[in-house]
Structures are given as structure tokens and as C-alpha cells.
């Protein structure tokens, strides 16, 4: 007896008609109209002052300000997530003291508004005029004036990092908790040393849920740096204010700042996409 593979049969009978979506077309037309109006106004309304925007977009003072914004973001991110990582591990520790200290930190630093904290660090000298270094409760080796050690940039970076650490701690903790406990157990059963277990097995898997949230936070931080304008630090937002106070071109200069913030977050979103892809390997 011979068997033949079943042939692909030609479809017969009534045809299936594609479903029509008239309201989709209507909504799309409405959106296109609104976009056209917005574009038209951007181009034709002279009050946008595009030539002024062009003039200041790459002005040296603005570029220096962008650089400071980036610097503050980088410091806030690196120290914020480093401290946040330590806090997350402390929080998950079976030692109740470590765990409650980490909890207390997050409680305080999430509660106090960033702007208040920044002013607090800026005015630390009122509280402690001199900082001394030595043995705790023992002799001091040397001391420095608080004002000399903590200038405006340090105060701003400190404030941003300490604030960010509270949020980072929760993000990292969430990521570590999201890893299947069986992974830790398998690594322990294989005799893999503790540090290696954390960095090779647990953390890379935790990164899958840490990265999207961390990306959110870092993009938030780029814009959060604009809060330090109250400390008269020439970051992007402060700098454009200085310029428009002088020349009165408010809208154009706010636009300059907006374009730069947009550019910076765009680059970060692209980077985030590749970082996510890296940690997503092995999963579809």
C-alpha cells in the first residue's frame, strides 16, 4: 500500500470579506489635520524665533551647560545606583539591623523633596561648619571647612545621588526578588562561591527587570538636574534663564533647553534598548 502526502487543498466556497474600519480612517484624518496645523504654526508664527534658537543651540555657554547637566546626571546615576545596590542587598539581608537601616534610608530619602534636600546639602555648613576625619569618638587627624569641601557642584551631586539611591534601592530589590529562587538554590547546590553566584547568576537575570525601571529613573534624573538651578549652578535650565533674562528671548531659549533635553533622553532611550537586548539574551 502506498500513501501520499495530503495535497494542499484549494479553498472553495464563499470568500471572507475584509472587515472595514471607517472610524479608524476618520480618526487618522483628524490627527493628520491637527499635526498639519501644529507644524504650520511652528513654521509661520514668528514668535518662535527659530533664528534665535539656531543662534543659541550650539552657543559655547549652552554647550558648557549641557555638559554640566550630563555630569550631574552621571554622578547621580553612578553613585545613586551604587548606593542603591548596597541598600537593596542590605534590605534583603536576614540581619534585622541591616534590613531596617536600609528601610529607614528609603523611608527618609523618598519622603523629603529633592529641592529641599539640595538646599539642605548646600547649607550643610550652617549645621557643621567644619568636618573632621579621625577615629569615631576618638582623636581627629585633620579637619576642613565644610564650605571648602562641599561646593555647589558637590552639594548638587550629593543631593541627586542620595535621592536617587532611595529609588534605585527599591528598583534593584524588586529585580533581585524577581529572580526565581530556584536559580540561587541551583547555584548553591553546584558549589558556586557566593560572590560569583550574585554577579554571574542572579544579577544578570535581575537586570532584566531592573533596566526598564532604571532607564525611567535615569531619564527622570536628566530632567531632575534642572532643579539644581536654585543653587545657581550653570546647568542647562539655569543657563537659558540667565540668557533670556539678559536678552528677553524667553520662548526661543526655553525651546533651546527643550531640544537639548529631548536629544539627551533620545540617546538614552537608544542605549537602553541595546542594554535590554543584552540582558534579554536567551529569552524570546
Amino acid at each position: 500500500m502506498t500513501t501520499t502526502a495530503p495535497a494542499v487543498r484549494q479553498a472553495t466556497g464563499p470568500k471572507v470579506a475584509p472587515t472595514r474600519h471607517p472610524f479608524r480612517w476618520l480618526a487618522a484624518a483628524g490627527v493628520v489635520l491637527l499635526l498639519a496645523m501644529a507644524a504650520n504654526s511652528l513654521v509661520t508664527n514668528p514668535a518662535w524665533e527659530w533664528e534665535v534658537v539656531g543662534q543659541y543651540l550650539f552657543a559655547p555657554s549652552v554647550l558648557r551647560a549641557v555638559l554640566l547637566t550630563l555630569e550631574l546626571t552621571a554622578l547621580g546615576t553612578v553613585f545613586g545606583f551604587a548606593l542603591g545596590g548596597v541598600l537593596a542587598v542590605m534590605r534583603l539581608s536576614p540581619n534585622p539591623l541591616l534590613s531596617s537601616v536600609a528601610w529607614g534610608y528609603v523611608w527618609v530619602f523618598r519622603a523629603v523633596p529633592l529641592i529641599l534636600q539640595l538646599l539642605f546639602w548646600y547649607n550643610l555648613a550652617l549645621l557643621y561648619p567644619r568636618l573632621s576625619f579621625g577615629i569615631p569618638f576618638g582623636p581627629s587627624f585633620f579637619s576642613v571647612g565644610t564650605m571648602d569641601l562641599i561646593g555647589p557642584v558637590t552639594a548638587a551631586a550629593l543631593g541627586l545621588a542620595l535621592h536617587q539611591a532611595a529609588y534605585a534601592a527599591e528598583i534593584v530589590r524588586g529585580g533581585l526578588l524577581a529572580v526565581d529562587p530556584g536559580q540561587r538554590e541551583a547555584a548553591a547546590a553546584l558549589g558556586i562561591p557566593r560572590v560569583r553566584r550574585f554577579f554571574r547568576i542572579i544579577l544578570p537575570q535581575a537586570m532584566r527587570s531592573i533596566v526598564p525601571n532604571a532607564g525611567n529613573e535615569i531619564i527622570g534624573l536628566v530632567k531632575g538636574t534642572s532643579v539644581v538651578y536654585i543653587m545657581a549652578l550653570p546647568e542647562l535650565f539655569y543657563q537659558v534663564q540667565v540668557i533670556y533674562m539678559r536678552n528677553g528671548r524667553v520662548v526661543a531659549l526655553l525651546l533651546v533647553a527643550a531640544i537639548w533635553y529631548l536629544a539627551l533622553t533620545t540617546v538614552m532611550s537608544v542605549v537602553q534598548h541595546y542594554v535590554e537586548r543584552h540582558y534579554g539574551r536567551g529569552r524570546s
Partner: protein
Amino acid sequence: MIEIDGVHKSFGALHVLRGVSLKVAPGEVAVVLGPSGSGKSTLLRTINHLEKVDAGTVAVDGELVGYRRSGDVLHELPEREILRQRTKIGFVFQNFNLFPHLTVRENVAEAPISAQRRPKAEVAETVNRLLLRVGLSDKADAYPGTLSGGQRQRVAIARALALDPKVVLFDEPTSALDPELVGEVLDVMRDLAKTGTTMVVVTHEIGFAREAADTVVFLDEGLVVEQGPPDQVIDHPQHERTRAFISRVL
């Protein structure tokens, strides 16, 4: 090879192991049967100190696992020592627990490199040999997520064997598998049993117990009820509870 003596273990008010003693000779294959909740998995997990005991001792290859004895007191060993002991005891989990972000090759090579500090080139050869043995040479660079359940469990077995352990423990290795994939995993385990590997297998596969086990241990309510060769325990159980269990699963 394995000597378990009077082991007790409670989880809160639940007394899971109530004085279990068991000896497994070198090269012996012991299959542990018992209803769920009888303490089979807990017993297995005390053998590599994934679970601490409340009382009693576990020794593998003549060495107390997880503890150091001084007089009448057992002190828990430092973690480094426990990890060293675990490299002599392979463990295969019900849910495989492969590392999903590492390839098959990296999964198998991880512990020999990081726990045993063996040279990479030598480990690479071991990995190739083991993947050949479990029939997955062509999957060396695949990620676990792309494999079937049966293939994943075979990788997990290769991973446990990569440490060249004195004993291999299997915790319900086929319970998470689709029925048609159970056979391929049991085939690998049967081969292992033939080559003289000391094995303790917790399973519900009576067929495997009958043909591969040297000893069948029936555990119920935290105690060894009956043990002996399979034709005795499975086919002519002495104890009422064993008979009831066997008749339910056959």
C-alpha cells in the same frame, strides 16, 4: 557512600523527617518512593545541606556534610567548606533550574570553572564529552529557553555530572515533563546507573525503580517504612502502607 543516621527536620510545627536512617553503598542506585508530603524531597535536600538538619547526621564519602563534630556537638561548617562538599554531590532538580541567560555549554561549564577552579581547556573537553553522553552535542550553543523539557533536564544532568561527583541526587527529575519526554530522561539515568554511579532518586516512576534500582526505599510520614530490592518492596511489600501506596500508583 552515603550514611544518613537518625535525621530529624521540622518546618515550624510540621515534623517532616522523624528519624530517618539510610545507607547507600558505592555504585548503588537507591530509589525513594512515597506519597507527597512524606519527606522524600526534604531528605534528599539534607544530603547536600540545602536543608539543615535539626538532629542526626548525614555523611557522604566518609565525611559529615555541613557540620563538624566536636565531642557531642555539631557545629555548622563555614560556607566555603560546605560549597566544597557540594561539588562532590550532584543535584538534579524537578524544575531543571538551568541558568536561562547562559548557553547550554556555559551552564555545564560554570561550576567546574568557578567552584572547582579547573582549567578552562580541560573543562571544555569535559563539557563536550558530557553533552555527547546525554545526546545534546548539537545544542551546545543554544539557550535553555529554546530546548524542550526533556532536553533541559538532560542538560541539567550533564551539569550535575560536570563536577565529577561521588553521588548524584535526583529530585523528581521527570515530574515536570510532558509524558512523551519522560523516556529520554529516564534513558540517560538508566545509562548512568549502569556505569556504576551512586544515585539517590526520588521519583514516581515505578517502572524505573523496578528496572534500575538496587534498593527501593519507601518513605511515609517522615519515616522509612520499608526498604529492599525492588522485587521485594514493589512486588511483595510487607507493610500495609507500602501495599496501599504501590496499588495506588501502579
